[in-house]
C-alpha cells in the first residue's frame, strides 16, 4: 500500500461512484456469506455419501439447528463484548448458570410461561454482569483471573439454591413457546437488530471501538473507559442468560455444576466468535459476522453428528479446525508481507543494476 490508498474514486469503464460502492458492498457481503454456504455444501455432500441423508433431513432438524444457532450466537456475542478489548472473562459461564437458575425459577414460581422465564433470566443476567463489571473496575485484577474467582463463587451460589435442582423447564406449563421455530427466529432477528444498534450505531459502540483501538488515547479524549467497560460486562451477562434459557429449553434441565464445570459453553463458543469477528471485518459489522460464524460451526456440528461419529472424535475435529483457523488468521498478513518483500527485492535488484552500471 505505498502512498495514499486510492479513494474509491469513480473509476474506469464509466461506472458511477455509487455503483462502484454497491458492487464493493455486495462483494464483501458475499465474502462473509461464503463460509456458511461452503460449510453447508461440504457437510451436505459428505452426509449424502455416508448416510444418504442431507445435513438437514427433517423438520425437527431445522428446529434443533435454529435453537443451537440462537444459543451459540447469543453466547458468542456475549464473549465478543469483552474479548474484542482483550478481556477474557471466564465467569461468563457461571453468570449464565446463576441468572437462568434464579431468574427461571423465580418466573416459574410466579406462574409465568417461557417468555417470563426468558425476561427474568435476562434481567438477572444483566445484574450479574453489572456486579462483575463494577467489581472488576474497582479491583482491576486481570479479567481471566478475576473470572476464575467469580465463577467459583457464582457456581457455589447457583448450586446451593433451589436444593440443587437447578432449572427444570421440561414439562413446565407455557415453556413450549421457547421451542417454537417462529419464536426462536424472532429472538434471533431482535438480537441482530439490538446488537447491531449497540455495536454500530450507539455511543457505546463508537466508544467501545475507540477503547479497543487505544485505551490511553480514548480516555484522554474524554471517553469514560470505566462505564464503557461496565456496560460491556452488563451486555455480556444479559446475552449469556438468554443463551442459557434457550439451551435449557432444548436440554430440558440445567443442572448446576461445581469445580469450574460451567465453562463448557465458554470454550464451545470461542470458535464461532473468532470466525465471526474475522468474517465481520469484511462488512464492518461484527454482529452479522458472528451470526455467519455461528451458522458455519453449528452446521459443521450437525453434519458430524449425522455421521454418528463418537462424541470424542467430533470434539477432536471441531477443535482442530479451530486451531487451524487461528493459525491461518494470524499468519494471513505474513503471506501478503512475503509477496510485498519479493516485489521490493526485484525493485532493489533492478535499481542495483542501474546503479551498478553507474558505479562500474
Amino acid at each position, binding site marked *: 500500500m505505498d502512498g495514499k490508498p486510492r479513494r474509491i474514486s469513480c473509476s474506469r469503464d464509466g461506472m458511477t461512484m455509487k455503483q462502484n460502492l454497491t458492487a464493493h458492498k455486495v462483494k464483501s457481503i458475499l465474502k462473509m456469506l461464503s463460509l456458511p454456504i461452503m460449510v453447508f455444501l461440504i457437510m451436505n455432500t459428505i452426509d449424502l455419501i455416508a448416510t444418504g441423508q442431507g445435513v438437514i433431513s427433517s423438520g425437527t432438524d431445522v428446529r434443533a439447528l435454529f435453537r443451537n444457532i440462537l444459543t451459540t450466537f447469543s453466547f458468542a456475542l456475549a464473549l465478543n463484548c469483552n474479548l474484542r478489548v482483550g478481556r477474557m472473562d471466564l465467569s461468563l459461564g457461571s453468570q449464565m448458570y446463576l441468572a437462568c437458575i434464579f431468574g427461571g425459577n423465580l418466573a416459574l414460581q410466579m406462574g409465568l410461561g417461557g417468555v417470563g422465564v426468558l425476561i427474568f433470566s435476562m434481567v438477572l443476567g444483566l445484574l450479574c454482569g453489572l456486579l462483575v463489571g463494577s467489581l472488576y473496575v474497582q479491583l482491576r485484577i486481570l479479567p*481471566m483471573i478475576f473470572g*476464575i474467582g467469580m465463577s467459583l463463587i457464582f457456581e*457455589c451460589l447457583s448450586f446451593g439454591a433451589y436444593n440443587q435442582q437447578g432449572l427444570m423447564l421440561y414439562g413446565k406449563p407455557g415453556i413450549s413457546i421457547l421451542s417454537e421455530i417462529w419464536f426462536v427466529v424472532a429472538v434471533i432477528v431482535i438480537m441482530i437488530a439490538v446488537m447491531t444498534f449497540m455495536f454500530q450505531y450507539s455511543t457505546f459502540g463508537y466508544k467501545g471501538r475507540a477503547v479497543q483501538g487505544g485505551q490511553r488515547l480514548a480516555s484522554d479524549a474524554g471517553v469514560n473507559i470505566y462505564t464503557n467497560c461496565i456496560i460491556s460486562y452488563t451486555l455480556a451477562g444479559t446475552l449469556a442468560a438468554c443463551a442459557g434459557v434457550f439451551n435449557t429449553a432444548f436440554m430440558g434441565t440445567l443442572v448446576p455444576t461445581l469445580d469450574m464445570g460451567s465453562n463448557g459453553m465458554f470454550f464451545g463458543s470461542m470458535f464461532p466468535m473468532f470466525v465471526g469477528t474475522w468474517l465481520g471485518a469484511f462488512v464492518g459489522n461484527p454482529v452479522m459476522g458472528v451470526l455467519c460464524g455461528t451458522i458455519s460451526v453449528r452446521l459443521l456440528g450437525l453434519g458430524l453428528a449425522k455421521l454418528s461419529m463418537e462424541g470424542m472424535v467430533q470434539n477432536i475435529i471441531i477443535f482442530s479446525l479451530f*486451531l487451524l483457523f*487461528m493459525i491461518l488468521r494470524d499468519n494471513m498478513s505474513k503471506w501478503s508481507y512475503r509477496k510485498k518483500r519479493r516485489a521490493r527485492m526485484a525493485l532493489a535488484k533492478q535499481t542495483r543494476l542501474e546503479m551498478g552500471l553507474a558505479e562500474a
Partner: protein
Amino acid sequence: MENTKENKLPQGTRKLGVMDHIRIIRDKPMFPLIFPLTVLILIIAGFGIATEGGFFRKTVLMGVFNQALIIATVSTAMTFVFAAGNMDISVGSAMAFSAVAGVYAYNATGSVFFMVVVCLVIGVVLMSFNGFIHAMFGVRTIIISIVMMQLYSAIVSLILGPDTVSIDYGLCRQLENAGFRNISFILFFVFCMILFHSTSVGRKLKFVGGNARCAQQTGIQYKNTVLISFAVAGLGVGLSAVFSIIRTSTVGTTLGAGMGMDVMLAVVLGGMSIFGGSRSNAYAGLLGAVTVSALNKGLLMCDVSPMLIQGVRGIVFLILVFLNSERPATLPSAQD
C-alpha cells in the same frame, strides 16, 4: 559500595514520604516471597486454632505437602511459561496422556526407570508442541491450550476406552514409603530454582515477559526463550505424571481434569503476576500449591459443608490476588 549512598536524594529537596518507604519494601527482592509465605503461615495458624491444634499434627502437615505435590510440580514448571507472559491450561490433559504412556511403558518393560523416561519425554514433546505452534505461528497461548486440552483428553479417552490401566500397587507403596516422590520433587524444585534464578534462562524469560522488544534489542530471541520455557513445563508435566501414577497406581480418563485452573490458581496465590515480567519467580508455584492444599484440608477438617468450600476458596483467592497485585491505572487486559 559506600559512595552509592551519596547519590541518595540531595538533602532538603524532599524527605522520603510514606509511599517511598512502602515502595522500598515492595522493591526488596524478598517481598514476593515474604507476602505469600506470611499468608500461608497465617492460614495454617488459623486452621490450627479452629481445629484445636488438630491441624498442627505432623501427619496432617505432611499430608498437606503430600497432596500439594502434583500441583506444586506442574506449577513450579509453569512459572517459566508465566514469566514470559504466556499461559497454558492444557497441562491436565497432557499429564493424563503421559501417565497413560508411562503405565503402558512400565507394563511392557517392568522397569520404573523406563516409565519415568517415557513420561518425561512425552510430557516435553506435548508441551513443546504447544510452544512450537505459538513460537512459529504467533497464535496466543491461551487459545492453543484450550484446543490442546480438548485434543489431548479426547485422545486419552480414545486410547483408554472403557477400562483404566494400572500398575502393581505394592511397587507404588514401596516407592512412596521410600520417599521417591518427595526426593525427586525436591531435586526438580532445586533444578528449577537454579535454572530460573541463577542462569540466564530465568533472566531472559523475565525480560521477554516484561518488554519483548527491548529484550530483542539486547540479543534475546523470543522464539528460543519461549520454546525453552515450554520444554521445562513439559518436564514438570512428565514428572507430575510419574507422581500421579505412583500415588494412585491407576490411570483413568478423569486424571488431571481441571488441573489447568488449579495450577493458575496456585501460581497466582504464590504471588506471581500473570503478566510475567520482573516480579516472576520459581517458588510461587510451590507456595501457592501448598496454600491451596492447606486451605482445602483445613476447610474440610473444620467441617465446612462441601458446597461452601468452593465459595470460600473463591473469596479467599480474590482477596489474596487483590492484595498482591499492583493496581494499574488503566484497566488491565491481555491486548489481543
